[in-house]
């Protein structure tokens, strides 16, 4: 058992991070979970939320917003297949609010269930992002 956890964050466009950390908090679909070194093998989908990376115990975590994806913990470490990541410092709150209202309107005007489902998915991550930024 090692003291640090090897982790990789991969987006479809590139390998975002490939490093070691003491602990990583992942927003799993069934609730947040913390991945520590030697965690049992696990595969979980991720809901829109913040991944917190603690490089040292007790240190300030670096935060990264993930739109959704899949986390896989294997004996080799943690792999996060992120759909898209957003830098929290670059979020424009007003723009985001406008987008949320727009999407809500679009959902009401949606022609069929398939379109509505797609829009609701979009709305879910925007709302989650707004909550994180507001907090």
């Amino acid at each position, binding site marked *: 058992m090692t003291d640090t956890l090897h982790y990789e964050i991969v987006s*479809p466009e*590139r390998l975002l991070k490939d490093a070691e950390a003491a602990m990583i908090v992942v927003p799993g679909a069934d609730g947040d979970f913390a991945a520590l070194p030697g965690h049992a093998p696990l595969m*979980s*989908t991720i809901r829109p939320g913040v991944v917190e990376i603690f490089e040292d115990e007790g240190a300030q975590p670096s935060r990264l917003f993930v739109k959704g994806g899949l986390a*896989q913990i294997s004996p080799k470490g943690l792999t996060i*297949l992120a*759909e898209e990541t957003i830098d929290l410092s670059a979020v424009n709150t007003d723009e985001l609010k406008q987008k949320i209202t727009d999407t809500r309107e679009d959902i009401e005007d949606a022609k069929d269930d*398939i379109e509505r489902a797609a829009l609701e998915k979009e709305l879910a991550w925007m709302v989650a992002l707004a909550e994180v930024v507001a907090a």
Partner: protein
Amino acid sequence: MPSLKDLKVRISSVKSTQKITKAMKMVAASKLRRAQEAAEAARPYAERMENVLAGLGAAVKDQPGASPLLAGTGKDDVELVIVATSERGLCGGFNTNIVKAARAHIQSLVKAGKTVKILCIGRKGYGLLRRTYGDKIIGHKDMSAIKRLGFADAHDIAADVLAMFERGEFDVATLFYAKFQSALVQITTKQQLIPAPLPEVANENEAGDELQGAIYEYEPDEGAILDDLLPRNVAVQIYRGLLENAASEQGARMTAMDNATRNAGDMIANLTITYNRTRQAAITKELIEIISGAEAL
């Protein structure tokens, strides 16, 4: 026999063509490097996705209620053929080769009595297919406004394709694109997108080391993870195809323009020889005239 002036004009026009092809070759070379980097950067995600799918898919595929994206709709009457080509020409046989492969595939499907629907990505393929299969084309994605291909672009295309699939508009989807091997070699590839093909057994062994070595806990459960993963896999595969295509296009253009530059060089050499010979002939003729005139006196 062209006059001296004609030859001179001709030489200078070929020279300016050569300058253009040379510049295009250099531009293609630098674009190729960027496209190649993008394709390589996207590889880790696709590979890990494949690993996860290989492990999960094999377990779930035969169970009843498996996602139609994996198990298929049980029919293969209607096939959607997605043809990815470039937006611009002057890249040798790049577009023609992709379209040729797609056309052969479409023909065999039509012969087997199946319905074919075509979705074109890129302007060139649309132009080539419109004449023969105009009635079968259901859509055309214009990528000319996109400067740098992002995952979001592929995601949009995938969303459209998946919406069509959910409405039951087709049973099988195949993607045609050119896989990049080197600047000289691009392999036209046919890839099935829906239902998702599981990686080959040989591949599974590699993935298996990582996956089957440990007993996984699934959250929420295998089925739900797959339902989430499979639509994303379609987008990832399309994205990968488009990236490979972009790199191939630049590679093909580089090769084509290199050939054109060399041909122009040969042509200039030939024309210069003819020009010099004609000039010499004119001088000799004048001399003969003067000498014979002097002798006659």
